[in-house]
């Protein structure tokens, strides 16, 4: 037995939509403190997999273990309270509310839970998350009016404000400019100082730069797993994914 309990572990995790096995008996282990990237071609089951982890979708079979505890039966909101935060692939904010209110909604849930909800604590927690993502000056703007890149950052800020132990980022840099991506890399590094990060990403240079280990999905299964260098040199991965995208 390993000496340290992994932060997250899935055993035989499967999910079928009709006849399609989107995720097929996946055994996955994520130690605490890592930045892990999940890559794979479209339709490989990456988003379905993290949805199973975060509880947005119920698995057909298998189990999810978080910090040694089986959370397969827990509803999504209870998993969030355990420390699993999920940021959406398609920007999912509260567009009619101010930026501050969006983040305050994240902060106040934890404060409410701990019985420490005061205006000052709320303000501090929210502004803290906004400062870390560089959105502090825009706190009063209506979030729906923000530029797309800022909305993506707000999405991350909302996840961050939950003070998660595991932050799942589903294609966070989709649609961002190069400059924004650079800032984003720094942001993720800072987040990783006190949280484990699970990152689904298509941007290969970014993945190679950021991830400590990479898991490659293909047709609902784990095709390969290893350090960025190992993955780059893996023949099967090149065939399934990297080669295909390099030709395109």
């Amino acid at each position, binding site marked *: 037995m390993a000496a340290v309990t992994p932060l997250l572990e899935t055993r035989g995790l499967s999910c079928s939509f009709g006849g399609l096995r989107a995720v097929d008996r996946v055994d996955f282990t994520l130690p605490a403190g890592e930045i892990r990237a999940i890559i794979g071609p479209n339709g490989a089951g990456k988003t379905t997999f993290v949805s199973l982890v*975060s509880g*947005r979708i119920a698995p057909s079979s298998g189990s999810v273990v978080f910090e040694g505890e089986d959370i397969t039966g827990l509803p*999504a*909101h*209870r998993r*969030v*309270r355990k420390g699993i*935060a*999920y940021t*959406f692939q398609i920007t*999912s*904010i*509260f*567009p*009619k*509310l*101010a930026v*501050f*209110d969006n983040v*305050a*909604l*994240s902060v*106040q*849930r*934890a404060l*409410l839970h701990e019985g420490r*909800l005061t*205006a000052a604590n*709320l*303000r501090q927690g929210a502004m803290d998350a906004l400062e870390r993502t560089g959105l502090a000056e825009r706190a009063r703007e209506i979030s729906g009016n923000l530029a797309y890149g800022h909305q993506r950052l707000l999405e991350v800020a*909302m996840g961050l404000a*939950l003070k998660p132990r595991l932050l799942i980022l589903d294609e966070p840099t989709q649609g961002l400019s190069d400059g924004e991506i650079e800032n984003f890399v720094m942001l993720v590094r800072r987040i990783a100082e006190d949280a484990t990060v699970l990152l689904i990403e298509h941007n290969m240079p970014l993945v190679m730069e950021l991830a400590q280990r990479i898991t490659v999905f293909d047709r609902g299964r784990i095709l390969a797993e290893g350090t960025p260098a190992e993955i780059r040199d893996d023949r099967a991965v090149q065939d399934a994914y990297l080669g295909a995208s390099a030709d395109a």
Partner: protein
Amino acid sequence: MTTTDRPTPSILLHVGVIMVLAGLWYVLPDYHRAVFSRVMVLAVFAMGYGLLFGYTGLLSLGHAMFFSAGLYGAGMTMSMLGWNSLAGLGAGIACGAVLALVIGLLALRTTGVAFMIVTLMFAQVLYLTILYFNEYTGGDQGFSLRRAARQIGPFDMTDPATRYFAALVLFAAALAVMLYVVRSPRGRVLVAIRENEERVRMLGYDVFAAKLAAVVLSGALCAAAGATYAILFGYVGATFATIQYSILPLLWVLLGGAATVLGPLFGTLFMYYVVDITSNYTTAYLLFVGVALILLVLYFPKGVLGTVRERWLQWLP
């Protein structure tokens, strides 16, 4: 909607509205005093409805059942058990809250159109139940409350002035509750559910519990209006359980502005007078109601106060 922004003007505005309503008693002729008494009570009904519809984004077509639960809860305990008005009011509110809890547990398993249908069906069930037990409820005809029962301490609710100010007290209390709720952190969660339910869940909130709390509070407010209606106007009847009284609060709220605290008062008042004035001239007064609604949808798609907030007064809760 923002808890952190400028609390004072909105508090001042609402206190001002209550003071204006109090002052109106001294300037209005008798007839309009009676209208305002009724409108203030019905506006509380609309506010309760608006909490669920405007803020939480749940469209119910069955809120007549909560108003009726208050109406009959107060009326029947007072007439059959001889309870006094205050106990009757408490019984009415309790009936509404318990009914809302049960209905909420069942109906909140659905969303959208299904939620509308389910609430509509439950309201019909209550209406038919009232008719079925006509031995106790008076069925279609309803029943009147004795004058002696309609006292709260030294105050006689059959006296027009007392009635007016009792309605105002209820209205002010409901306004305070609404303001407190929509400005509180939990109120912000309700608005967030309306805007993006899935995201709220993924922030770790128990969305079902939050919605259920909103249904219960909404039901209790509507029942408070129903119970007060029974006490102030002394009549309890099955008309108030019909589908019409489920649709009316929706129209009042839409007219005044969904997700505004004062919108329901405005909408109720406006609609009451449109019906009142036009029905003096023609039996086809619903035609005018329809025209008024079309004009509002065209020029004030967010309701009167909703549009005012969007264009001029962004701090309006």
